[in-house]
């Protein structure tokens, strides 16, 4: 049975935030170190808006992060470390 769809391929605004895709296949995620000087560059470079400023700190919205590492690559203070999602030979989820 063919699905009934809108004529113009559209979705409700914000639907990508509601149904995040990265979490199922991300292999690493960023951790913000204490050397962070709050320059906010990482929040601008993050292609998925996963890094935000909250109460004077950079906070990771885990469900939006795909683990690309652009933030760590761009951080001038080297204050972002990419940590593997899996550890150990059996690939146990942390």
């Amino acid at each position, binding site marked *: 049975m063919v699905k009934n*769809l809108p*004529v*113009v*391929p559209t*979705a409700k*605004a914000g*639907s*990508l935030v509601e149904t995040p895709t990265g979490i199922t296949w991300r292999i690493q995620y960023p951790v913000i170190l204490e050397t962070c000087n709050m320059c906010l560059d990482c929040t601008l470079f993050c292609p998925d808006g996963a890094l935000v400023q909250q109460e004077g700190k950079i906070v990771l919205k885990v469900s939006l992060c795909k683990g690309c590492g652009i933030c760590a690559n761009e951080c001038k203070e080297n204050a972002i470390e990419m940590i593997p999602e899996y550890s150990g030979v059996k690939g146990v989820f942390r």
Partner: protein
Amino acid sequence: MSTTLLTGSEAAAYGAKLARIEVLAYYPITPAFPAMERVSKFIDDGELNTRFVRVESDHSALAAALGASLAGSRTFTVTNSQGLLYMTEVVYHTAGLRQPVVMAVANRALSAPHSRFPEQGDAISQGASGWIQLFCENNQEVLDNMLQAFKIAETVRLPVMVNYEGYIQSHTLEEVGIPNQETIDQFLPLNRVRTLDVENPQAVNTVASPEFYMDYKFHQNEAMEQALTVINDVAAEYGKEFGRDWSGLIDTYQMEDAEHAFVAMGSMVSDARIVVDELRKQGQKVGLVKVRAWRPFPAEALREALKNVQLITVCDKNIVFGLGGALGTELKSALYGQDCRVNSYILGLGGRDVTTEEIKKVLELSEKTEKQATASEWFGL
């Protein structure tokens, strides 16, 4: 209605003006350029209330047109050959997003080697893109098809290309009747659909998972099939209103008792009418089938029009490499199982002239050919 001398490009521009286009997005290319030049003059003279978006490439031209159309405006652009290839990504976007953009295409040969001369290869390259494609035989039809194109597009929510050959049509003056604005306004009320709406924000062209993509494509193709009826209806309505009936998907000429049919699209058709008249005077039972809508492909209409014909000669001003002429190949496929011989010829590539003499020679050659060749034959090398 007034009658004046117009080039094909000007006829397209007058069509856009009568349709009261709201946005023109354009990047210059030869031979499509004069159409945009004329529209921009209408705007400058205050005869047309249109936003002219000047962009940095053909890709951006159609992208701007697509955006304007998503915002609900009646939108027009013009291009050909390399420009059409450069905007190809957005050609598919426009069809997939179901926007009724109308694009005039002054058909020109594709590089390499570089050529500025007429040929239909550029339009043919977009045959799988989901655009409705109309081909015009003369400048009057360019103007009339422009107006019908907007009506068809806004009915089935698909974009339409109006094809006319570079120079042969785009730069040649012909007598063209221009309908009154008032009657066109009645024929072509703006059927506005806004997708970009600040009151109701939506994410456009979001990722469609395997669960949805195929269903979207099914609906898109269904709209193409709907166009098979709509193109006929709109042509009939236009004919009734303005006295020029271009006969929908295909047109037939002297086909009642024809034993040999000539099938073509574009400027060749008007020459072929003269050839058919001449050969009829000599007692030859020759007829003409014009393919006016190449997309959607009018397979059923062609089967019906050619059901009593033994010999069919089909000519293509294009080459699909490794396959043959596009129209010839598709016609053979449409006529599968029908008892007839189809001889397919490729001619007139890159501006090589096709006059009534060439058409006569092709028809003679086809009569003499005893066995149908699998591939298309090259004529006029």
